């Protein structure tokens, strides 16, 4: 089985690079917390991409040097960041005007599950007694022009995350445009989930075996 060989999967860095390559010069981009943040490290030379963070900064830069952290300059994940030259600050209603008002071009988010219709579940596992927290995820999927998901193809237990229907509580219905996993890049289309690209050495059959949703080759 080709899949037994870890070398044939994309690494996290390669996954982030796959996303970065699809974000054109001049885009306004919101990156979710966690793996999506890595996308910023792989923007190809010559492209200017402006990062938005929903807590009120357009033109977010990299982490500050040690000792230069400012508790009043943080990102949506409450990590210390910097502001690029030409950045601007604004209040929360303006920030979500940018999001809901379709001014942000791309949003890259993590996922618990994505369905073949582009439904996304990424805010709660819905366990009883657990504290639910939603943040800006539902506003982002409702308003950003292109929603990309970056996620491992399966859970740590090996269960498919790309599914026919999401069992977990939804963040939004029919919102995801493209899915980047360690095994493939998938496009959500009216005809279903199209395989755009597969990791080197992985067969369509092996990919389908790790996917609950029905995959199609273009």
């Amino acid at each position, binding site marked *: 089985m080709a899949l037994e060989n870890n070398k044939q999967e994309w690494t996290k860095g390669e996954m982030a690079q796959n996303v970065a390559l699809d974000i054109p010069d001049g885009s306004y981009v919101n990156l979710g917390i966690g793996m999506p943040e890595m996308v910023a490290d792989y923007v190809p030379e010559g492209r200017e991409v402006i990062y938005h963070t929903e*807590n009120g900064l357009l033109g977010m830069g990299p982490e500050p040097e040690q000792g230069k952290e400012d508790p009043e*300059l*943080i990102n949506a994940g409450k990590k210390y960041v910097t502001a690029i030259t030409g950045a601007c600050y*604004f209040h*929360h*209603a303006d920030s979500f005007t940018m999001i809901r008002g379709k001014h942000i071009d791309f949003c890259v988010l993590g996922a618990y599950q994505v369905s073949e219709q582009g439904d996304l579940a990424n805010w709660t596992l819905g366990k009883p007694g657990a*504290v639910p*927290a*939603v943040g*800006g995820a539902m506003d982002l999927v409702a308003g950003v022009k292109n929603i990309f998901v970056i996620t491992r193809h399966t859970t740590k237990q090996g269960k498919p995350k790309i599914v026919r229907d999401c069992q977990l509580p939804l963040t939004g219905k029919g919102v995801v445009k493209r899915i980047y996993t360690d095994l493939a890049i998938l496009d959500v289309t009216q005809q279903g989930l199209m395989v755009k690209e597969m990791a080197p050495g992985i067969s369509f059959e092996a990919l389908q075996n790790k996917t609950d949703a029905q995959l199609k080759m273009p």
Partner: protein
Amino acid sequence: MINKLVPSLSEAVKDVKDGSVVMLSGFGQAGSPIELIHALIDQGASDLTVVSNNTGSGHVGLASLIEHRRVKKMICSFPRTTHSTVFPELYSNGEIELELVPQGTLAERIRAGGAGIPAFYTPASVDTPLEEGKERRTFNGRSYVLEYGIEADFSFVKCEGADRYGNLVYNKTARNFGPIMCTAAENTVVQTKKMVDLGDLDPEAVVTPGIFVNRIVEINQPLDESQLIAENWRYPWH
């Protein structure tokens, strides 16, 4: 003469009543009016409904207000953060109410409340569990959810600079919910790092116009919440 500066924190928060609705600015610790919150703990009002993006961390600020059982209900988007244990414990024991609101909806509900708009429709939360019980309407073929504006009895807001008219400027991402919360309360109480003379703030650069502000207290060196949490402080201090 107009002078919104008040001499003390206790004066600034003196008339918060049991059952008041209180908005607290801040996104995590950035912009959280920690001195005003501590003054509110000392003042003693309880059964509060608090509107704030998070629920506080450690045992200081909002977390301490909650720990002292002064908060009946939280309206927020993200009630857990690193080092937040107080709210999650009370919530799982059923001892505090939670109204969970998507962050953009929370911001717009506050903005609407301050702008005299009783309700509006938003696409956020359509087809999710957070839509349950809400009115849905279709515009141009797309579904939207009815959400209501929020008005408060008090807003507590932290800013960087203020003049005696109440014109305000903020610092970086500590601005967050401050400007909209200033508009949405019957009494807006501000803690500023610096009081400046009239005319020192560039009229083109004022973020919150003074008309939205009722009282100002000057706190030159506000506490650093993450440092307090790292050193395991609890308010009242011990």
